[in-house]
C-alpha cells in the first residue's frame, strides 16, 4: 500500500495571464470581433435547439450522461487500470504523465524514436492545454494542425478562442486574408466563399496526409472495458491522421474514460447535437490498440493528470470533470458572446473554462475567472451532462482570495444582518446619513444612486452604481397604511 499522495494542480495554457476584466476590455471594444461572435453563436444556438428539439428522450439522455460521468469519477482509479489493461492487451502502449511537461516529454521522445521530424495533428484540447506544439518545435519537430479552424489559428500565429471552433473569432474575409498571406499554395484568386476556403485547405494538406509517418491526436472518449479510443470529427482530417501514419500517439486526460462500450450510446447522441448542432457529425473513428494490416501499427496512449486530481478532490467542483467539450455553454453565454474566448486566457474559455481552469490551477492562480459570469444559468440548461456551472462558480468565488477591506466589510455586514434589531437600526442610521445626499442626487440625476466612490469602495462603483437607501422602508410604508 502506497502512502497517501496529495492531488496536484496542473501547468500549461490554463492560466489567465491578465485578470478577466482587463483582458476582456479590448475584446468588448472590438466591434468586428463582437459582430463575428454574435453571428456565429446565434447560428449555432439555433441549430442546436432544432436538433435537440427533435429528440423526445433528450432529458433522459442527459440524466444518463450525468450519472455515467459521476460513476466514472467515483471509480476513476480502477477504471484507469482497467483501460490500461484492455488497451495493452490490444497492442497499444499506455504512458502516464503527471503534468503538462511530462506529457510533452513523452510525445517528443516517442516521435524522436520513429526518426520523423514532423507530425500531423488532429484537433485536441489536451494537446493545446499542455502546449505540445511549442514543445515539439523546441525539439526540432514540426507540428501541423489539420483541423480547418486549428490550421487557420496556426497560420495566423494566434491561439484558439473556442473549444469546438478555435477560429470562431474570424469571419470568412479574415480567413481568406490569412490563407493568402501564409499558405504558399493558396490559389491566387481565392474567394472568401466557405467552400473555396475548405477546398484550399484540402489541397494544402493532401500531400502531408499521404506521406505522414506520425500522428498526434486527443480522444473524446476512452472506453475502460475494451481499451477503445474514440475521436469525433467532421472534415476527415481526423480519419487521415488516425488511419494513414505508421505511428499514432493519443494524449488523453484521465477524466475522458467511460466504463463500457455500451455507454457510447448515450454520449454519441449527446455530443454532436450539443456541439455542432448536427444529428451526427460526419465522421467518428474508434480504434482498439493495433489492427494488423489496418491503420497505425505503433499505437500509444498518454494518460494525463495535469490538475485533474485536484479537481477530483473537491466534491462540489468535481462535476467539472464530466465535461465532454461540446461548447454548448460557450454558445449560450452572454459573457462569452461579448468578450470572446481569448479574454479567459486559458484554452478552456466560456462558462466551463470559468470553473475548470481555476480548479486545474488552484483558484488563487485564476481568481478572476469565477467572476466572468452573470450567473444567469443558461449554461446549466444546455449542458448535455448537467454540470451545475452556476453552483460551482459561486463555490469557487467563496474560495478565491478576497481583499482585506472586502472581508472586513462582509464580516461587519454579516454581524449587522444577523439581528433584526441591529439591521433596523443600521437602516435608520443609513437613511439619516444618506437622506440629504439621496435627495440631492435625485434632483441632479433623477436617481438616488452614487456613480463613483473613493478607494477602496471604487472597486464596487467601477462597474455598477451604488443605490442609496430609500426615504422609507416597505415596512414603514405598510405601517402607515
Amino acid at each position, binding site marked *: 500500500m502506497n502512502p497517501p499522495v496529495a492531488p496536484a494542480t496542473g501547468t500549461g495554457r490554463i492560466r489567465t495571464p491578465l485578470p478577466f476584466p482587463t483582458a476582456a476590455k479590448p475584446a468588448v471594444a472590438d466591434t468586428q470581433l463582437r459582430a*463575428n461572435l454574435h453571428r456565429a453563436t446565434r447560428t449555432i444556438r439555433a441549430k442546436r435547439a432544432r436538433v435537440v428539439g427533435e429528440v423526445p428522450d433528450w432529458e433522459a439522455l442527459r440524466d444518463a450522461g450525468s450519472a455515467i460521468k459521476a460513476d466514472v469519477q467515483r471509480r476513476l482509479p480502477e477504471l484507469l487500470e482497467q483501460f490500461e489493461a484492455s488497451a495493452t492487451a490490444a497492442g497499444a502502449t499506455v504512458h502516464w504523465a503527471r503534468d503538462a511537461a511530462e506529457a510533452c516529454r513523452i510525445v517528443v521522445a516517442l516521435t524522436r524514436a520513429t526518426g520523423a521530424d514532423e507530425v500531423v495533428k488532429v484537433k485536441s484540447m489536451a494537446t493545446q492545454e499542455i502546449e505540445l506544439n511549442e514543445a515539439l518545435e523546441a525539439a526540432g519537430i514540426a507540428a501541423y494542425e489539420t483541423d480547418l479552424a486549428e490550421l487557420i489559428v496556426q497560420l495566423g500565429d494566434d491561439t484558439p478562442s473556442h473549444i469546438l471552433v478555435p477560429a470562431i473569432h474570424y469571419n470568412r474575409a479574415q480567413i481568406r486574408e490569412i490563407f493568402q498571406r501564409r499558405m504558399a499554395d493558396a490559389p491566387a484568386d481565392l474567394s472568401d466563399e466557405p467552400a473555396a476556403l475548405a477546398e484550399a485547405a484540402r489541397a494544402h494538406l493532401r500531400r502531408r496526409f499521404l506521406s505522414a509517418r506520425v500522428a498526434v491526436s486527443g480522444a473524446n472518449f476512452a472506453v475502460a472495458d475494451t481499451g477503445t479510443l474514440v475521436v469525433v470529427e467532421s472534415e476527415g482530417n481526423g480519419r487521415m491522421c488516425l488511419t494513414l501514419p505508421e505511428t499514432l500517439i493519443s494524449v488523453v486526460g484521465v477524466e475522458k474514460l467511460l466504463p463500457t462500450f455500451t455507454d457510447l450510446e448515450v454520449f454519441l447522441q449527446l455530443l454532436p447535437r450539443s456541439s455542432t448542432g448536427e444529428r451526427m457529425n460526419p465522421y467518428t473513428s474508434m480504434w482498439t490498440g493495433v*489492427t494488423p494490416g489496418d491503420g497505425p501499427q505503433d499505437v500509444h496512449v498518454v494518460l494525463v493528470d495535469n490538475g485533474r486530481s485536484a479537481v477530483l478532490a473537491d466534491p462540489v467542483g468535481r462535476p467539472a470533470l464530466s465535461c465532454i467539450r461540446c461548447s454548448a455553454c460557450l454558445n449560450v453565454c452572454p459573457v462569452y458572446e461579448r468578450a470572446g474566448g481569448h479574454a479567459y486566457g486559458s484554452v478552456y474559455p466560456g462558462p466551463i473554462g470559468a470553473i475548470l481552469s481555476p480548479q486545474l490551477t488552484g483558484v488563487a492562480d485564476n481568481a478572476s475567472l469565477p467572476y466572468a459570469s452573470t450567473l444567469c444559468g443558461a449554461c446549466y440548461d444546455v449542458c448535455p451532462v448537467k454540470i451545475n456551472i452556476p453552483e460551482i462558480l459561486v463555490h469557487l468565488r467563496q474560495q478565491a482570495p478576497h481583499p482585506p477591506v472586502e472581508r472586513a466589510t462582509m464580516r461587519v455586514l454579516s454581524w449587522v444582518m444577523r439581528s433584526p434589531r441591529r439591521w433596523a437600526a443600521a437602516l435608520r442610521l443609513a437613511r439619516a446619513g444618506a437622506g440629504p445626499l439621496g435627495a440631492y442626487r435625485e434632483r441632479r440625476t433623477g436617481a438616488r444612486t452614487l456613480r463613483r466612490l473613493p478607494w477602496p469602495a471604487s472597486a464596487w462603483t467601477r462597474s455598477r452604481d451604488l443605490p442609496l437607501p430609500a426615504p422609507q422602508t416597505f415596512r414603514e410604508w405598510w405601517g402607515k397604511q
Partner: protein
Amino acid sequence: MSARDEILARLRTALADNPPPVQVPRGYRRVDDRSDVIETLVDRLEDYRAVVHRGIDALPRLLSDVDRLAVPTDVPAAWLAGYAGELHRDAPPLSPAALDDLDAVLTGCAVVVADTGTIILDAGPAQGRRALTLVPDRHICVVRTDQVVGLLPEALTRLDPRAPLTWISGPSATSDIELNRVEGVHGPRRLEVVLIGPDDEVVPVSPDDEVVPVSPDDEVVPVSPAGGSGA
C-alpha cells in the same frame, strides 16, 4: 514512485470523501418503434447531402462514369456486374498515393442508423481496411435494408468494439467558418448510398452479365480467391 502509481495515488486521495455509488438511469429509448425506418434513413441521408439510389440495378449506371474503381478484396461479384472500367482490388494493399489516383471506392457496410443517417463500417465483409474508404474522393456504399436499425443504441449491440470502426454521416464537411456547414474537405466529397433488399445480391443485373451465383445465406462471396477479410 512511477508516474502511473503517483497519479493513481493522487486520485485515490482525491476520493477520500468516498462518494456514494451511482445508479445510472437508462430511461432513454433503446429500441425504435417507428415503422418507417427506411424512409427515415433516406430523409436523413439526403438532409446531409448523401445521394440515395434504390435497388441493385442502380449500380451499373452509377459505376458507368467511374474510370478507376477501388474495391475491397471480398466485394460481391454481383455489384461489379457489367463494370467495364479499371478495377483496383486492395490486394496487395494499395498505397495512399495509389488510392489518391482512383476515382471512387465501392464497399458495403456493417450497420446503418436511420435516426441519424449514419453508416458504420467495421472492416468486416465487403468493407476492407479503413484507408480504402477514406482517400478516394467518391464513396459508393451498398446498404442492405436488413442492416438498417432505427436508433443508435440498437447499432452498438451489433458491433464488435475491437474492430476498427468508422461512422459516416454524409460527405466530409466542416462548420469551422462562421459555424455554417460546408460539404467537402478531406474525406470523400461525394457519398452515394445504394439501398438494396436482403436478397438483391442474387438478382443478375442483366442476362448478359456474368454473375457468380450467391446463396442467400452468405453475406458476401469473395470475387478473387485468397482475399483476406479486413478484420
